[in-house]
């Protein structure tokens, strides 16, 4: 097992946000985490990656057999864990190429800066996320992740703000550069469009800080959610518990 999250509870702003999450991802496996806005998906992703903003009150996180619950974020990144941010902050004055070089240096890797062609390579000379469009931010996040050479990537809403052409390009890159290389992937989304390209092996549904459904057939889950919303999931007999 590459990632194992056991009974994870997280508090923030005086209330419990994650209420005992269990999740396991094997090496090379693609899973998806679906859920409505505010259900705790991004908090979960950030907690797994060690964002100091979120405090774990209970539970444990294991990565490649090692307990990492108290590891700082940089140590987790060095172990091979990566997260693309939904709304990454702007780092004024720092060129994107400068950041990529920093990220690559500790990994001793050559990243695929130019694989998005001329259309995206202009980002390299711009300041990180400063005046980036929604789509450019997603490309920037993906390029950084590739530079990290990770073993596990959590994509937080990588598909939002992308037009169909870019979505296809991003999906192809994830397939070719990550999934084909046995990198594990957890997709966080609430639209589901990217799932048709990446075909996850397991679909998890999170509502109110709990994973209430685990189902192998993502199409089935998407159909239910599209037709009845997440309320139906709450009442479903296949509750993960």
């Amino acid at each position, binding site marked *: 097992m590459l990632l194992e999250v056991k009974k994870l509870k997280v508090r923030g702003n005086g209330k419990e946000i994650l209420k005992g999450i269990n999740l396991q991802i094997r090496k090379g496996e693609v899973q998806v985490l679906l859920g409505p806005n505010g259900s705790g998906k991004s908090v979960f992703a950030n907690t797994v*990656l*060690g*964002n*100091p*903003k979120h405090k774990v009150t209970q539970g444990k996180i294991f990565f490649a057999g090692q307990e990492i619950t108290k590891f*700082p*974020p*940089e140590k*987790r*990144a*060095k172990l091979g864990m*990566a*997260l693309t*941010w939904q709304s*990454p*902050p702007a*780092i*004024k*004055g*720092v060129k994107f190429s*400068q*950041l990529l070089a*920093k*990220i690559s240096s*500790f*990994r001793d890797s050559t990243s695929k800066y130019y694989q998005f062609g001329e259309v995206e390579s202009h980002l390299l000379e711009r*300041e990180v996320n400063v005046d980036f469009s929604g789509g450019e931010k997603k490309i920037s996040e993906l390029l*950084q992740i590739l530079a*990290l050479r990770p073993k596990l990537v959590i994509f937080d809403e990588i598909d939002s703000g992308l037009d169909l052409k870019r979505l296809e390009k991003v999906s192809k890159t994830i397939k070719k550069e990550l999934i084909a290389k046995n990198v594990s992937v957890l997709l966080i989304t609430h639209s589901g469009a990217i799932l048709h390209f990446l075909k996850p092996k397991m679909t998890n549904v999170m509502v109110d800080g709990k994973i209430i459904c685990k189902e192998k057939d993502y199409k089935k889950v998407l159909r239910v959610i599209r037709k009845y919303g997440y309320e139906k999931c709450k009442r479903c007999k296949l509750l993960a518990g």
Partner: protein
Amino acid sequence: MVMKNVKDVNYWQVDHKIKKIFEAKGVEILTSKSAWEKHNWVRKYFFKKPREGYFIWIKKQVDLPLFTCISIAAKNTEQELQNLLILEKNLNINLRGACNAQKRNLNCLHKAQGKIILKEGSILKYEHIHSWGNKDVVEPNYEFFLEKNSKLDYTFKTLFTPKKFKINTLVNLFEGASCNLKILANCIQTETEIKDTLRLIQKGAKGQIKLRLVGRKNSKITAHSQILAEAESKGHLDCRGLLIDKGSIISLDPKLVCKNKLAQLTHEASIGKISEEELNYLRMRGLTEKEATDLIITGFLMVEQAG
């Protein structure tokens, strides 16, 4: 910090000794003491007979950047420089100046009085880099004269601050002249006082001051920035501080003085801290807290160099 590009340097002084003078074609370079002896007309620019410092008179276009370096290598050295740079009409020149201590513990004094004259229509891009030890006292005092339609792009950047730092910069702008003055300082364990003034003396002059100051490790920083409009002109003052730790103080004092009803002067000032979100973002990309902090500070100081 040892002088690395010796072969490219035009004026190189270590302590009180001239190591090298290399005159490009159309450029006269002397010690200011020799210039005082040779050219009577330069005397008006010096407040007294100079003991040391450079005189650079650029008479013709030089396409490669000119480079000056004034270093201190011996302990307890006290430099008292008078520098004079004159740029003739319609020239477009790049100048790089480095002032530094070769070691961090020399306990030295570096005082510099500089006058820089830009004649009509000339353009000067001047990058002035300082780097000192933590026992040094440094007092650069520069005055610029920007004649009709001349342009100055001046960046004063400090890599390592001395124990005591007094930076005085005065820019006088005449008809149609323009100036972009940037003072960027990463202040660590220092008492730094900055006084920078733009005088918009004649019609059509325009200028801006950008100040970026980082306060770290018990630094006390005071900046008095002023734009004074005496004619129909435009000026903008932009002062920003970034406070890193508890023991440091940044005090910004932006001032606009307008003596002409057709002048337009504006200012903005802010002092902030490093954003937790940016820090966590970079840490999640594998940078340690220190590396992430340093990168954010580099960005804060770099951001305005381009603009």
